[in-house]
């Protein structure tokens, strides 16, 4: 075993030699530097392996004395991990900065290695003064790197940094010396008594405040932000992922000395830094500065974790490592990609699309940083929130989750830009291999880290690991042609269905939703067969969406459910983002998804606190808590189900997604919200919040959603938006039905869910086929397509008859049950609203079918053909399903009835053959169908007989006031066809929700804009901030009573 002190000696020797080397042969020097850092890495790695395999760590006593008479270094697991990270990352950095190093003079090289060496010692040393010395060495080295590697901006930023670090180190030195005076030692491990000694607390406070200030806490971190903004990308990466964790570790080392209540205060300040920095980042347009804010925020999160180390106990390493590794890989990766793109302008980042691997890397880094699964920060954040929940730290959770939401906001705005920004000709990008490879290594690193986290958590094989593997597999084979990937994905889903069927067999509820997700997934993939090329980036995310959904079906614990939820959100976000104009809607979708997810996370924290990790484990919870959990979860699920007020993400997201991806994200994915609501209502039962019956409120929400969604749909000219709004309406029905909370209500909800899935998928695929052929989404640009697309017409016709709930098709069953359920529940007014919305639906249904298929055919559509074969197949399958349900609804409803818990109130639907009865009414699908078919048939024959000689006439041969219309456009009445309705009842669709959310976001960004002017850019102001912060921390820690 090489003595760890040789890390220091190698570093120093290399630095000296290099400064002697002069300015010739930079090339060789750079390789030499690599060898030196490689040797340092070797030592630390060696210790890591040794300790990992059970070996002991080592205390190194310099100068042959034991402490307190000499400095000692320590090498245990913690130090081995951190020094390994520092040195290996240093090595990567050399590769990444190779061109800079070759061009720069030898001093930069020696400063670089001094910097690394300083960090190593900061980590290893147990001596306070030594720590001070090396902090200063690192500071000087940082300043040196800044002055040698950055542009003019960097110079002033470096100077501000020096001012700040002088003030901070002054505080540290003062604290250290007073600490020494009181305890007679400089060794951290021998200072435990310091806070107990009179006056010692002040010394300790000085040390603590200096260390905390070094972690760049909000708002005394202007110097750090400026540093990040102007540092060379490689240097910025090192500052973010090496300096910050090293200083965190120093705080961690000091913890035994710091009293418990101080730790909590520090931790809380860390959380505030996290939230506030993420908040201010939303207003940033300069990428490097944004990354700076993000780095500071991650630092805050790490500080919070460190401060909670004692509290977290066994989970500490899990959480800390999760955040540390994410920061290490993802943040550095983003900085380095920044170096490749070579621009701070978000709009120039589209250049990454030229290299799909880099684009993927970027996505991975952004998702990892945002704490999305399956990356370590996701699990770490979950664990941290659960632990905070166990201590009932709701305020902490709230601040943290709000911060996370802001983090999603700026990261995904950026992601959207990268995917959508126009590429310019003369972009300053630099795709040198020595820059790409280190970034790739970081990507590999984050994936490996994710693997270890998932492996550590012991997930269920069938329901978590196999789906994850399948998703990963589709990333690997993304170069294959679309056709093959389509077959593979359909095959994978089918096989997966076959595999999980035995496990779900006994549970019809799970079967229903697994069936919706699987069958829906397969059917909506069918149109993909007609796609050409590789269709890169579609299949991995389609797989992620569908398998994420499937994870929701049979979750073993809350974490699995939440992971599935987030995966599905991430996958569908990308699917939506693939659409042409989808940047803004996709961003909105992501924000709402994330908001819902974090609300859900908070609810799970409460649930976990009471009933453990098992999914919806023991629900016997004190009524008040249960009410809050119920309400939070209901909000989260209703957000996905697009309840009114929370629906504004939906139309844009569904409409702007690629045409053949829309059925998946809408018809199938929207059922995840339903699944959640069904589980919620069946397992929790009715709950109250502050005395209000939540289900009653949900009932009203459902009714208003139904009206609102349908009302909005009738004014849409865009085919997909129309169907999308119709989904909002349908979700209103389902929410309402669930809120009824009787046997019948639940049956309606389940029946409607399945029915809505069938007809909406059908309609969307049909619409996709039409849009595929006509190349437009505006219905008024279509017309008369019935003749060229008869199959699509029939499908849409059946879809809208079902949707409208007209007998004799299956939709009527839903309406009929609704009426009865409402009478039995005595919710007459809400019920009338539901029916009103049902009739309003006629308007947009009529518009949908007549504008597209009937009326006048346009000249440019005269040669349009029927939708491609692969579009028709799934539609026909779904039509068959509707037909079967229309004649024999009991085949579906009887099994559904069996899963309704007996504890539910109300009477159950009785079946006698085809006759369904309740005390309030009856209905027989089969005889209705028979009577209607017979009547229809006879009348049809009658007409055929009478008008057998009817002559087919040309398009314009109509009774048109003695005039012949000369253009289809002037004759086809479609645009704004319900103008009168808008005039009469348009006030109902005042976009209150949109206005509300937009105003809210305006307010937030405006405040962020105002607040960030706190960072004036003046180094002296920043120094003043430090002192103010110290004062505030002093008040917070002591209440002014330390002396």
């Amino acid at each position, binding site marked *: 075993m090489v003595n760890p002190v040789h890390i220091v000696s190698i570093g120093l020797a290399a630095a000296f030699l290099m400064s002697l080397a002069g300015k010739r042969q930079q090339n060789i020097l750079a390789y030499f530097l690599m060898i030196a850092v490689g040797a340092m890495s070797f030592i630390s790695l060696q210790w890591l392996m040794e300790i990992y395999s059970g070996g002991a760590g080592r205390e190194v006593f310099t100068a042959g004395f034991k402490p307190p008479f000499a400095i000692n270094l320590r090498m245990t697991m913690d130090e081995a991990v951190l020094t390994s990270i520092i040195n290996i990352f240093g090595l990567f950095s050399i590769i990444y900065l190779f061109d800079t190093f070759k061009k720069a003079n030898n001093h930069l090289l020696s400063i670089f290695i001094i910097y690394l060496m300083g960090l190593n010692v900061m980590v290893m040393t147990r001596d306070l003064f030594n720590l001070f010395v090396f902090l200063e060495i690192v500071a000087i080295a940082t300043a040196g790197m800044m002055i040698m590697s950055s542009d003019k901006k960097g110079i002033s930023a470096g100077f501000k940094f020096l001012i700040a670090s002088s003030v901070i180190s002054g505080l540290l030195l003062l604290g250290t010396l007073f600490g020494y*005076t009181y305890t007679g030692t400089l060794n951290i491990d021998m200072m435990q008594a310091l806070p107990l000694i009179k006056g010692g607390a002040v010394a300790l406070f000085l040390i603590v405040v200096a260390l905390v200030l070094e972690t760049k806490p909000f708002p005394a971190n202007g110097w750090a932000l400026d540093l990040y903004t102007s540092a060379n990308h490689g240097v910025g990466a090192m500052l973010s992922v090496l300096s910050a964790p090293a200083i965190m570790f120093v705080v961690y080392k000091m913890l035994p000395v710091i009293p418990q209540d101080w730790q909590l205060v520090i931790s809380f300040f860390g959380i505030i830094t996290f939230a506030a920095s993420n908040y201010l980042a939303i207003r940033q347009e300069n990428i490097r500065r944004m990354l700076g804010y993000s780095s500071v925020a991650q630092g805050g999160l790490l500080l919070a974790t460190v401060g909670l180390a004692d509290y977290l106990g066994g989970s500490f390493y899990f959480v800390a490592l999760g955040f540390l590794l994410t920061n290490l890989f993802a943040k550095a990766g983003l900085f380095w990609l920044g170096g490749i793109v070579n621009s701070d302008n978000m709009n120039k980042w589209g250049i990454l699309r030229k290299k799909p691997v880099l684009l993927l890397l970027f996505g991975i880094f952004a998702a990892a940083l945002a704490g999305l699964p399956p990356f370590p920060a996701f699990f770490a954040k979950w664990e941290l929130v659960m632990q905070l929940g166990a201590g009932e730290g709701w305020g902490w959770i709230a601040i943290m989750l709000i911060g996370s939401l802001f983090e999603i906001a700026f990261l995904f705005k950026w992601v959207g830009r990268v995917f959508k920004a126009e590429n310019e000709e003369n972009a300053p990008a630099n795709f040198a291999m020595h820059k790409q490879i280190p970034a790739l290594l970081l990507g590999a690193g984050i994936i490996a880290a994710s693997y270890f986290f998932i492996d550590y958590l012991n997930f269920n094989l069938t329901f978590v690991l196999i789906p994850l593997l399948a998703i990963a597999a589709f990333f690997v084979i993304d170069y294959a042609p679309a056709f093959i990937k389509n077959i593979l994905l359909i095959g994978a889903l089918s096989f997966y269905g076959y595999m999980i069927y035995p496990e779900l067999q006994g549970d019809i509820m799970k079967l229903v939703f697994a069936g919706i997700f699987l069958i829906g997934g397969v059917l909506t993939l069918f149109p993909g067969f007609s796609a050409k090329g590789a269709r890169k980036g579609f299949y991995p995310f389609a797989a992620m969406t569908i398998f994420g959904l499937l994870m929701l079906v049979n979750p073993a614990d809350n974490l699995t459910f939440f992971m599935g939820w987030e995966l599905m959100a991430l996958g569908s976000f990308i699917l939506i983002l693939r659409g042409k104009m989808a940047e803004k809607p996709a961003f909105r979708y992501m924000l709402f998804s994330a908001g819902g997810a974090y609300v859900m996370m908070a609810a799970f924290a409460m649930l976990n606190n009471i009933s453990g990790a098992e999914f919806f484990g023991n629900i016997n919870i004190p009524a008040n808590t249960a009410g809050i959990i119920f309400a939070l979860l209901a909000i989260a699920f209703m957000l996905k189900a697009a309840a009114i007020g929370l629906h504004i993400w939906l139309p844009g997201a569904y409409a702007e997604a690629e045409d053949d991806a829309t059925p998946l994200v809408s018809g199938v994915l929207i059922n995840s919200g339903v699944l959640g609501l069904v589980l919620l209502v069946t397992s929790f039962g009715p709950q109250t919040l502050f005395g209000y019956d939540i289900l009653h409120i949900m009932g009203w929400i459902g009714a208003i959603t139904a009206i609102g969604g349908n009302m909005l749909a009738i004014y849409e000219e865009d085919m997909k938006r129309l169907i999308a709004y119709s989904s909002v309406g349908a979700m209103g029905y389902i929410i309402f039905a669930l809120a009824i909370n009787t046997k019948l209500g639940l049956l309606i909800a389940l029946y409607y869910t399945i029915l809505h899935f069938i007809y909406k998928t059908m309609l969307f695929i049909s619409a996709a086929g039409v849009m595929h052929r006509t190349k437009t989404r505006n219905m008024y640009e279509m017309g008369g397509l019935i003749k060229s697309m008869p199959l699509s017409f029939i499908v849409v016709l059946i879809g809208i008859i079902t949707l409208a709930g007209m007998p004799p098709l299956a939709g009527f069953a839903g309406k009929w049950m609704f009426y009865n359920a409402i009478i039995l529940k005595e919710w007459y007014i809400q019920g009338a609203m539901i029916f009103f919305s049902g009739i309003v639906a006629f308007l947009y249904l009529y518009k949908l079918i007549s504008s597209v298929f009937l009326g006048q055919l346009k000249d440019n559509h005269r040669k349009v053909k029927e939708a491609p074969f692969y579009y028709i197949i799934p539609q026909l399958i779904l039509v068959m399903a509707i037909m079967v349900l229309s004649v024999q609804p009991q085949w579906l409803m009887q099994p559904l009835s069996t899963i309704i818990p007996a504890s539910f109130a109300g009477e159950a639907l009785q079946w006698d053959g085809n006759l369904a009865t309740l005390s309030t009414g009856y209905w027989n699908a089969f005889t209705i169908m028979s009577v209607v078919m017979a009547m229809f048939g006879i009348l049809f024959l009658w007409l055929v007989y009478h008008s057998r000689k009817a002559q087919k006439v040309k398009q314009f041969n109509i009774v048109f006031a003695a005039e012949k219309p000369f253009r289809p456009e002037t004759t086809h009445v479609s645009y704004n066809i319900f103008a009168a309705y808008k005039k009469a009842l348009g006030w109902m669709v005042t976009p209150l929700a949109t206005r509300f959310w937009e105003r809210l976001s305006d307010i937030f960004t405006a405040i962020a804009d105002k607040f960030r002017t706190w960072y004036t850019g003046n180094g002296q102001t920043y120094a003043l901030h430090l002192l103010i912060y110290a004062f505030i921390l002093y008040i917070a820690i002591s209440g002014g009573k330390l002396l």
Partner: protein
Amino acid sequence: MEQYLTLQNIGIATGFALILIGLYGGLTNKNILRIIVSFTIFNSGLNIVIVALAYLKGRVAPIIDDTTGLDNLSQKFVDPVPQALVLTAIVIGLGVTGVMLAYALKMYQNKQTLNINDFKETKW
């Protein structure tokens, strides 16, 4: 009053006074060179405090010579550790000052001014 006016207390008070003067100067002066000088004063103050803390009345500097002999040295000397530390601190202070001056030079070369208010390229 008398008993407070020990050499140690005077040292500490002077040190703190210098620290405050340095900080004040560092925060109020607009000229970068003046700021650097202020921080040097700040550092000197710190160093004086360190030395003063180590001072024990009636003892001598920790140098073995004829007057001290070799017995009971720990009773005769002032605390040697801060003395040693202060040397390091001075060196580091010098290093920092050096880097700051290098920065001042660069900044002046860039903008032909030494007013710190003119260096606010990065903000918000």
